[in-house]
């Protein structure tokens, strides 16, 4: 609740800062009652097709922008049918009264040109209707036809950022495990999709069991665990040339890898003689450092955004709990003290929270807590919810939910850090182990 509150305060500030504000009909009001917020109404009339060839693209781009913003749960679209006028000329003055009449607080206008060489040019502007003013500069994106969805997401990210004061998360991707086959003969492949489930494609075949992919901070590489040698081993897949290789000469079984925020170090778990500990491995040179050495299970490590600390899980106290230690190893402090077991901790990119899987009384939850263990909030509950991953701006979590029983299958879901807006990510087929990228460049 607290975070969303902050976020909406920023909305207010960015809108009230406008010079014409004082003359408008009254302050923009966003209701926060019992944790339910009133999404901000906006209108996104059909983008202007600057030439005939751009007509379909103008339509498609606008609908992706609308889907992004509505999907965030923070915005509500005033449907086209209710709109009094459209925008037929991108550069003509906006008739604010038409938009004010339908109570659209924000107005997004756009124009699309298709060039002969296959390039698309997208322009957009954002207006505060009640202040009768443009919010920020108009922006123009140029890209190839294949990238049209990314261009729409970039428009959405700019709108989101201007209205909330925070970076967006729409132009991003998710690597995950695509699953097929029955529960006792499951086949798994690595796959990648846009954050909204579009453009899904496989990255590996299912000849070897693959688990838990994790993006590098620059989005160009993916760490994962593969059984292609017969044992679980950490591999790195280069998305630019699709080459993969096992990670240096680590003995035994390795899994649960994750990059440091600067991409120079990899954390992973190594099992040897039945004992699992956390190691760091330098990407260059492969220098290996053992960070834990208890006889208990230490796994699922995740760096703080500044790279100075690591949150991980351990059963050193008898059951699976969350701990924080310095990045170089050393004394760890326990942070989870609620009932049940806690695993898969992931440090928020904002640094303020850790997301985790909680198991309690036969139910699984995705939750968040502060780094001192306070303010624990469970966001979901089901037979099996597992493996949260943060949106680039730390406002949304994806995870996977597996249904109960002999026909149980996993699906990827997302939920706001407030616990609102829980919904399945529309992936074709079944998916698990999502890892959300940073914003694409």
């Amino acid at each position, binding site marked *: 609740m607290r975070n969303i509150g902050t976020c909406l305060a920023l909305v207010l500030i960015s809108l009230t800062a406008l010079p014409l504000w004082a003359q408008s009909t009254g302050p923009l009001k966003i209701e926060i009652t019992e944790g339910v917020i009133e999404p901000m109404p906006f209108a996104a009339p059909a983008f202007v097709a600057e030439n005939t060839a751009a007509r379909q693209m103008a339509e498609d781009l606008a609908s992706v922008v609308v889907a992004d913003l509505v999907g965030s749960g923070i915005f509500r679209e005033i449907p086209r049918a209710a709109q009094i006028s459209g925008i037929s000329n991108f550069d003509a003055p906006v008739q604010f009264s038409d938009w004010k009449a339908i109570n659209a607080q924000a107005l997004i206008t756009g124009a699309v040109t298709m060039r002969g060489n296959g390039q698309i040019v997208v322009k957009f502007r954002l207006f505060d209707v009640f202040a009768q003013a443009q919010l920020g500069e108009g922006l123009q994106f140029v890209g190839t036809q294949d990238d049209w969805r990314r261009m729409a997401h970039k428009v959405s990210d700019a709108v989101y950022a201007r209205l909330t004061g925070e970076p967006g998360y729409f132009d991003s991707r998710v690597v995950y495990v695509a699953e097929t086959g029955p529960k*006792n003969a499951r086949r798994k492949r690595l796959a990648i999709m846009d954050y909204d489930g579009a453009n899904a494609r496989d990255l590996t075949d299912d000849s070897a069991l693959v688990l838990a992919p994790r993006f590098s901070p620059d989005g160009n590489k993916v760490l994962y665990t593969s059984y292609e040698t017969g044992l679980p081993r950490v591999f790195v897949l280069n998305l630019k040339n699709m080459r993969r290789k096992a990670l240096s000469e680590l003995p035994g*079984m390795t899994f649960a890898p994750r990059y440091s925020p600067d991409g120079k170090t990899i954390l992973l778990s190594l099992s040897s003689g039945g004992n*699992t500990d956390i190691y760091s491995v330098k990407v260059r040179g492969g220098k290996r450092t053992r960070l834990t050495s208890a006889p208990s*299970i230490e796994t699922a490590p995740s760096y703080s955004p500044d790279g100075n600390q690591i949150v991980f899980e351990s059963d050193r106290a008898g059951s699976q709990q969350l701990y924080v230690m310095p990045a170089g190893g050393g004394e760890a402090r326990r942070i989870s003290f609620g009932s049940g077991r806690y695993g*898969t901790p992931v440090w928020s990119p904002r640094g303020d929270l850790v997301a985790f899987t909680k198991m309690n009384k036969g139910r699984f939850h995705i939750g968040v807590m502060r780094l001192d263990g306070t303010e624990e909030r469970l966001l979901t509950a089901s037979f099996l919810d597992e493996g949260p991953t943060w949106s680039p701006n730390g406002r949304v979590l994806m995870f996977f939910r597996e249904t*109960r029983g002999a026909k149980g299958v996993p699906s990827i879901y997302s939920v706001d850090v407030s616990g609102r807006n829980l919904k399945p990510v529309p992936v074709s087929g079944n998916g698990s182990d999502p890892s959300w990228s940073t914003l694409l460049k």
Partner: protein
Amino acid sequence: MNFRLIGMLVLSTVILAGCATGVPDSGARGENFKPNTTEFFNASVGDRVLFAVNENTLGVEATSILNAQAAWLAQNTAFSAIIEGHADEQGTRAYNLALGARRAAAVQSYLVSQGVAASRLKTVTYGKERPIEICSSESCWSKNRRAVTVVSAGGTS
């Protein structure tokens, strides 16, 4: 491949009998196999032991099966084994991999303590990735929390 599947089906019967009596039922259907075969090991000696939730402790039933495994391995020196550790679905992926490794290692240590050369035994964990029973209740989970000794003629690789 088919052979191995059949072996597994037979085996669950053997395990149940073994749990009830504390001794593997050496009759069962293993009589159709020669004693120095993988099929005999799986069906008559018993290739797996089961664990309690989040545990890697070997109980009475488990140790009696492992004693029989050790005796068989002592007689059949051309065989080596890969011990697979598994967990049920009621846990997170990474933790279950670690738990499976712990279970496989518990079996390996026990077999070594019974005189099997460590060089003949390797371990692998599958965590919760390879359930044999697929219902979501204790009747299935109890069979999935297992360590399976997979024997084969020749060295482990």
